[in-house]
Structure formats: structure tokens, C-alpha cells
């Protein structure tokens, strides 16, 4: 949204100028928020209103403001942002502005430009000549880059919670605890996924290996097959347990079908790693027929992009796993553009890392058996996050059933 602040003064109540101006904003496709209003006490006292006018585009806003000026609205001059050079590579100037995940605008030479992407915990680097403002992490900043300091000239547009009860996010603000009925919420989540898939949205799944341990792989395979997964983020463990299961029918040496330990089952994991490394990559293993089923094979076959990030306790790792954390963050950030809905399951730290990369406008669904993980993720200030405390297999089973209907 683009916005301007206008001031109206005079006998704007008796002359009906205030209602006229507000009506015009709405009929021209804009929106308003009254920042301040002072109504004259006596008949001859003049009134004052400060109105923030917003519109979906610069053109619509300009047209609205042009009309409002005729009715006496004065546009409040905006102060420019303050900039300071980065003192060294990877170091922001003191008092740098820390971004949020909300849509943010800054004023540069009197006009507004949008900061892209809407990424939290960054600094804003301004390219004066290109009139570009970019949210950047520490490692993306070089000495001398112009960086926003202080709060002047910055405007944040919080995601507005709709008053209409049109989807599950808009009437649920808390996570669904263990002892509460879940079917209704899962159905709503299914509706949300359908809406995203059919409405040109982009669905991201962040998954932990518990998907495999709980036997939920066939359900996630179905979601991939039905087009409900456009992007998958996970760790080495998710991919490895999935591949071990696909090749040997075990996960960490346990037969998933029977729940019993396989003979020399502990070796299966290492052998699986070796097979993929031998093939060169997961996708080549699928092409060569080594890997036929499972989540990773489903992703390869259906063209679902994935990013696997490594951790300190990884075995292997598998060839595609990015072991440099910063590199992995960059890779996820690059792929995350355009994500509208994120389904995060059974991995607290990975989900939090991803939530930090998402703009506030993205809807997040978080499912974990650990209530603390769910509340950590849903209490991040986003209006559009929904949490569910549940084991993953029953959740995904019910979700796929709802989607199949």
C-alpha cells in the first residue's frame, strides 16, 4: 500500500468537508485512517483532522490526493530517511534501523519507495541512483554502503486483520491445544491449501524427520502429487530418513510398517547415504532408479524445488545438503520469494529460521507434537499464523482425507 498524510483544517464538520473527503477516498479505491482529530468547541472554532490516506498504487493515491487538494487537504511533507555508511564489511552503522517482516516504505528525496524484500532482522541498504531500498543481512553488506539509521522517514504497514470471518486465520488467534477438537481446524487448513494452490499461491512445506518416524510419508507424497507442495525445506535428517525408508523400509533401523528393529538396521542409514553419494545426488538417484518412492523422490518427479540445510549432528551428509548455515539461509531466501502459505511440521528451529525469512503477509500453519514449539512459532506477532498441537501422522492423514474430498 502507498500512503500520504493529509491535513484538513477549518469548519470541516459544519461544511461536511470531512465526510466528503473520507467518502471520496473510499469511492476512489483508497482507504484512510484518522490519525488525529480536534473538533472545535465553539461554533466559530475551526476543526482539524490528520488523515492517513492509503491506496493500492501510486497512481490511485496521486489521483485521490489531487482530488482531496481541491477540498482543502494539505499534504504533510514527509521527512527523508537518514543514511549512514557501513563502517566495515559485514558491519552496520550504529543505530541502524532493524527491519520487521511487515511491508515497509521509506521516503527518499520526498517520495516513497518500498523496501524489498519484507524480511525481518535486516538493515536497509539504499541505492540512491537506482532508487532502490533492500533489506540485507550482515554478510551482504560492504563498507561504505548507505544504510538507514534511526526511524525517521520509515513507514511500516502492518497486515490488517480483516473483520470478516472469511478464513480460519481471521477468527483464530491462538494455537489449538492438545485437548481440543482439531477436525474443524484441519478442514480449514485444507481449504486454505486449496485456495493457495488454485489461486496461484505458492505453498512451502518445512518438514522435520518426524514425518518419516511417524509413518506420515505416504500422506506427504500425496500432497506433493496433488500439487500442494511447491517448495520443500528440510534438513539432512528428513531426506535421509525418507530415503532409508524408501530403500530399506526402515527409519533409523526400525521397520516402519512393523515398528520392530531390523537386523543390522543401524547400518541402513549409512548404506543409504552411500548409495546417494554414489549416484551423485538425490535427483540422479531418482533418475537411475535407485530411489523410487518417498518424499524426496516425489519432489524430484514433480519438479518440487527443495533446499536441505545441514546441522552439526548430521550423518553424511547427503550431496544436496548445504552445510554452510549462511549459504543455506541465502538459498532459502532466494527460493522463498512469492511464498503465500507455509506449512511447518515437526521441526522447531528450522521452522523458526524460515519464519524469519517470510513476509508478514504469508500465512503460516504450524504443526508439532510439542506445544512449546507451536506456541514459539505462532506467537511471533504475525496475524496469519495458526498452530496445532498434534502428532504428524494423524494430522497429515486427516489433512489428505480433507483434500481428497
Amino acid at each position, binding site marked *: 500500500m502507498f500512503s500520504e498524510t493529509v491535513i484538513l*483544517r*477549518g*469548519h470541516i464538520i*459544519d*461544511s*461536511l*468537508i470531512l*465526510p*466528503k473527503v473520507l467518502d471520496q477516498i473510499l469511492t476512489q479505491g483508497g482507504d484512510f485512517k484518522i490519525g488525529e482529530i480536534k473538533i472545535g468547541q465553539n*461554533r*466559530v472554532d*475551526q476543526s482539524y483532522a490528520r488523515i492517513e490516506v492509503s491506496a493500492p498504487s501510486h497512481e490511485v493515491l496521486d489521483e485521490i490526493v489531487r482530488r482531496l487538494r*481541491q*477540498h*482543502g487537504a*494539505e499534504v504533510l511533507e514527509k521527512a527523508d530517511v537518514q543514511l549512514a555508511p557501513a563502517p566495515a564489511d559485514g558491519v552496520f552503522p550504529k543505530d541502524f534501523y532493524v527491519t520487521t517482516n511487515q511491508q515497509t516504505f521509506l521516503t527518499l528525496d520526498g517520495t516513497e519507495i518500498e523496501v524489498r524484500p519484507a524480511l525481518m532482522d535486516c538493515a536497509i541498504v539504499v541505492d540512491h541512483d537506482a532508487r532502490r531500498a533492500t533489506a540485507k543481512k550482515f554478510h551482504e553488506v560492504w563498507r561504505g554502503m548507505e544504510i538507514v539509521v534511526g526511524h525517521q522517514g520509515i513507514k511500516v504497514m502492518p497486515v490488517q486483520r480483516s473483520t470478516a470471518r472469511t478464513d480460519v486465520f481471521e477468527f483464530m488467534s491462538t494455537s489449538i491445544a492438545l485437548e481440543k477438537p482439531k477436525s474443524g481446524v484441519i478442514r480449514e487448513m485444507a481449504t486454505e491449501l486449496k485456495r493457495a494452490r488454485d489461486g496461484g499461491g505458492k505453498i512451502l512445506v518445512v518438514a522435520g524427520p518426524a514425518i518419516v518416524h511417524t509413518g506420515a510419508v505416504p500422506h506427504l507424497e500425496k500432497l506433493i502429487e496433488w500439487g500442494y507442495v511447491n517448495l520443500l525445506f528440510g534438513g539432512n535428517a528428513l531426506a535421509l530418513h525418507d530415503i532409508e525408508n524408501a530403500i530399506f523400509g526402515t527409519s533409523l533401523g526400525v521397520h516402519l510398517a512393523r515398528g520392530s528393529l531390523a537386523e543390522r538396521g543401524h547400518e541402513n542409514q549409512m548404506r543409504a547415504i552411500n548409495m546417494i553419494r554414489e549416484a551423485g545426488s538425490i535427483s540422479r538417484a531418482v533418475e537411475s532408479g535407485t530411489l523410487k518412492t518417498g518424499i524426496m523422490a516425489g519432489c524430484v518427479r514433480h519438479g518440487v524445488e527443495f533446499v536441505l540445510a545441514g546441522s552439526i549432528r548430521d550423518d553424511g551428509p547427503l550431496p544436496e545438503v548445504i552445510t554452510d548455515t549462511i549459504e543455506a539461509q541465502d538459498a532459502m531466501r532466494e527460493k522463498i520469494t512469492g511464498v503465500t502459505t507455509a506449512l511447518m511440521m515437526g521441526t522447531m528451529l528450522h521452522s523458526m529460521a524460515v519464519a524469519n525469512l517470510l513476509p508478514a503477509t504469508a500465512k503460516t500453519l504450524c504443526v508439532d507434537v510439542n506445544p512449546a514449539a507451536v506456541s514459539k512459532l505462532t506467537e511471533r506477532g504475525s496475524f496469519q499464523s495458526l498452530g496445532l498441537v498434534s502428532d504428524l501422522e494423524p494430522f497429515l492423514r486427516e489433512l489428505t482425507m480433507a483434500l481428497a474430498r
Partner: protein
Amino acid sequence: MRQLLLCPPDHYGIEYEINPWMSRARGAEIPVAQAQWKGLFNKLSSLDCKIELIPPRPKLPDMVFTANAGLTIGRRFIPSNFRHEERAGEAPHFARWMEERGYEVVWLPKNLYFEGEGDALFGGDVLFCGYKFRSDINSHRAVADILGCLVISVELVDPRFYHIDTCFCPLPDGGAFWFPDAFDEYGQRAIRDHLRDLIDVVEEEAVHFSCNAVVLGREIVLPKGAPKLVTTLKDRGYTCHPLPMSEFLKAGGACKCLTMFMPQREKL
């Protein structure tokens, strides 16, 4: 006794086009215009008022429309800031003339267009001001600051009725006659909220500038061509004096445009 300011039409003519009525191709018949102005002068002189005349200036043909000289309240005179360059030259003459007669001249900021009594008429203790075609709404606020009165700003939407005095005429009993369609919906509501007993003028009479009338107590001097309005006003106890105004109508003016109250209000 009310005092009025008029300006003889010695240099009057259609020399430019700044409203939909003006057409240089259809110039005013000067001898007829002079006779019509004389008729107005004589009629007003016969009523309870005193007439002052400002000397006309060459190349300022519209100076005859003294309503746009400014707004006079008590001994204070707020000169116009004309929107059109063609008329801007009138302002210093009017201001000097008023100053010489002992009025305190209070200029508005130069960036605010304001066309005097043409866009500012008192109804009761409320000053109704028109905006958009000629005056800026922000000039109304400045006027309210100077005078300390309630100003109701109303948007004019029909370019034929480009000043408020072409479509709205307050009456001393608290009412007014007006052509509502000249105002936007909010302006109409604001006027209705502040004045009771409004007389609507039909369009065929409004286009004769029937609302451009000089009201002196119960006497109303207005252009010919509004028999229905005259009947209504008569029923309310007013005496109407319809006058031919055809040659001034060609410039978008009539009786009221040719007259400025000096002052419009003694005090607020």
C-alpha cells in the same frame, strides 16, 4: 442606511473568455449595457441605500462587477486575489480606493484565490463561501481566521454558476433562494443544515441569474426572467424589481455582481 459600491461600465465589454457565458464572438451591446447599468443605478438609488462609485479603469472591463472587489465587514476590507490574470489588475485599484476611504485593508496570502463577495455571502451569522471554480477552499479558512465567524464552504459543481452569488441569495428573514443543482450533494446538505426556509429556483429561471439579486430589506432587485420566483418572493412579503440584464449576462454577471455591500455586515 446600506452603502453600496458600483462601478460605471465605461470600459465594459467582452474582451476575454473566463467563464462559459463569455464569448468574444457575441459581444455586449455597449449602449444597451450602459442603459441597463443606469437602470440598476437608478433603481438602487430609489431604494433605501447610498451608492458610492469607483472610477472605472481602461483595460479592466470586468471592474464593473464590484462584488468581486473583495469582502467588507465593518471597517475591514479583504481584497480579492483573482484566479484569472485578466482580472488580477483590478485588485490594487479597489484596495487603494477602500484604503483612501479609511478601511483597513487585510490581504489574504497571495497563493489563495478568493473572489470577494462573489463567493462569500452571509446568511444569518454564517458566512457561506463557494469554492472550486474561482475561490480556493483554503481562502475560506483564512477569511474565518480574520473574521472569527463560522464559514460554511460549499463546492460549486456547475461551471455556469461559478460564484456562489450566481446561485444563492440569502434573505434577511433567515432563509435564502437558491439553485440547488449548482452545489454538490454535501454543499446542499450543509446549506440545508444551516438555513431553514429555502426557496428552490428552477433551472429555467436560474439561468437568467435570478439568484444574482441585491436584497435591501424587503426590496429585491433581480434580473428579469424569473416570474415564478418573483411570485414566491411576493407571497413572502418581498417587493421585487426585475431589471433587464442581458448585456451583463453575456459576461456571466447581473445585479449582484455589479454591486458590493460596503460593508456586507457592520459587525459579527
